[in-house]
């Protein structure tokens, strides 16, 4: 290799890392700024000229923010909604995927295409009527208002149908000969065999639920029914310029999901990639 090529290669490598590190910093910047700001004193946060770092980290900001608004209640609400909606989503997805991949019923293809067609409808178009429906059901300020409308996710049904279809027919026939009912086959064979796909769906749904905002905002008025994202927004208007507290509250909301993400990123990344490659 010529000397010139060598130098060019070194420059290219340096440039490559420089861009990547810059990009990573850009991505991390809001998170870092959020945490740094959450640790400042009120004086530091509005200091002119601005200070980059707090001189003494104010961990007490977290306790203060936690108490300043009913965050424990918001967390509880969010957890309840997330758990039940995820159970619902998994149940409907598993049942439907089993029907589409294993059972034969009249109109199967048509129903499947109609299911897929609903993917084209923007959810924003549905909220108007759904809001009216929830009002008429007198479900405003209830958990079911936040859970039931999102208990069936066509995209997850589609994804799981793909996975279920890969289970060989002979397993199904063998189980039939062995006196295994359809439902039992689904629970004992299909579900355990597709554990990781189901886990992925569960995690994606948990993240989606945790971060959901507009719909819970619409169907709750009572502050005791708010989920965390609504509560956070409300806290922002209440806290005014106490940005260190707002940042602490934001950190509190974001952290659980970041921790889930760091531990289960393989599932999440695979799930999102697959959804990209599959559709």
């Amino acid at each position: 290799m010529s000397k010139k090529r060598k130098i060019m290669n070194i420059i290219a490598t340096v440039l490559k890392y420089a861009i990547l590190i810059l990009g990573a910093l850009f991505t991390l910047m809001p998170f870092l700024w959020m945490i740094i700001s959450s640790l400042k004193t009120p004086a530091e946060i509005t200091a002119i000229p601005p200070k980059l770092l707090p001189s003494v980290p104010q961990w007490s900001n977290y306790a203060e923010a936690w108490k300043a608004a009913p965050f424990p209640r918001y967390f509880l609400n969010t957890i309840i909604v997330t758990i039940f909606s995820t159970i619902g989503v998994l149940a409907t997805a598993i049942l439907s995927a089993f029907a589409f991949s294993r059972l034969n019923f009249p109109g199967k293809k048509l129903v499947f295409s109609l299911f897929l067609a609903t993917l084209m409808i923007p959810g924003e178009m549905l909220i108007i009527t759904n809001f009216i429906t929830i009002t008429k059901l007198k479900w405003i300020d209830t958990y079911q208002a936040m859970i039931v409308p999102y208990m069936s996710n066509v995209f997850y049904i589609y994804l799981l149908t793909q996975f279920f279809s890969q289970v060989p027919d002979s397993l199904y026939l063998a189980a039939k000969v062995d006196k295994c009912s359809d439902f039992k086959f689904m629970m004992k064979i299909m579900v355990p065999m597709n554990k990781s796909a189901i886990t992925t769906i569960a995690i994606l749904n948990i993240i989606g639920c945790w971060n959901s905002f507009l719909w819970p905002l619409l169907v709750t008025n009572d502050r005791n029914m708010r989920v965390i994202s609504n509560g956070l927004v409300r806290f922002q208007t209440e806290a005014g310029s106490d940005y260190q507290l707002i940042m602490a509250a934001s950190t509190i909301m974001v952290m659980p999901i970041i921790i889930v993400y760091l531990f289960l990123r393989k599932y999440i990344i695979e799930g999102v990639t697959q959804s990209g490659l599959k559709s």
Partner: protein
Amino acid sequence: MEKKSMKGYIYLMPALIVILLFTAYPLIRAFLMSFYEDYNMISGEYSRIGLGNYKDLFGDKDFTKALRNTSIYVVFVVPCSIALSLLIAVLLNSNIKCQGLFQTIFFLPYVTSVIAIGLVWSWIFNSNYGLLNIILSWFGIDKVQWLNKPKYALPSLIIFSVWKSMAFDILIFLAGLQTIPKDLYNASRVDSTPRWRVFWKITVPGIAPMISYAFIMGFISAFKVYNEVFSLWGGKAGPANSAITVVYYIYDKFYNSHNYGLASAAAVILFLIILVLTIVQRMMGRKK
């Protein structure tokens, strides 16, 4: 092989009920409501059926502004995010140390709440104490009124959204890049093909399907932008409604003004835009 029976519907029932009640029915209702003039949600009464709502809609300066803003937003956010993501993904896919760490970092914005991180961004954009203006001051640039001046409202929104949407694009591109056979690169190396040619002749065609997918998905989700606006301006649509978007308009019309007909008409327009985009995607998908 398996006999046809109605049993399948028992399994489909839960999903079917939810979809019929909360997807199919509201879809039809939205269409109908968009033609009901002076619709009263409680009594279900309306004065007449007609195109009045659509006339009002396109006569409403806020709506045309929302359409214009959303279009500008889409046109900037999607290509910027895709270009930057492509660069990062290609670099990530070359022989890189800590690839996993980088990937974990770059995907982080995808999983975090738009609302929470939007609050952070609104703090970053703060004209007096925000990080962005601190950094700009290092280069001798004066304070910019990011969120307070109408002319900077959209740019602020776009910066935030590019940051957010890059996560998904990088992931998709990286997955696409990894499906390109290594042999192709080795072959081009043996032929001593220059790098830029390798990029245009092997890399880009290899992930063309991913790029078109990212474009369509980007367009669709960008047309639905709402949470970003809400969190940057604490529930408002920017100074003097300067960052109003279509979904913000829909939400505002039915939730605050209780004008269900107008909101439905706007929702139908949004649906049509997304329908066209989906059809374009299907057609591109079929071409392959």
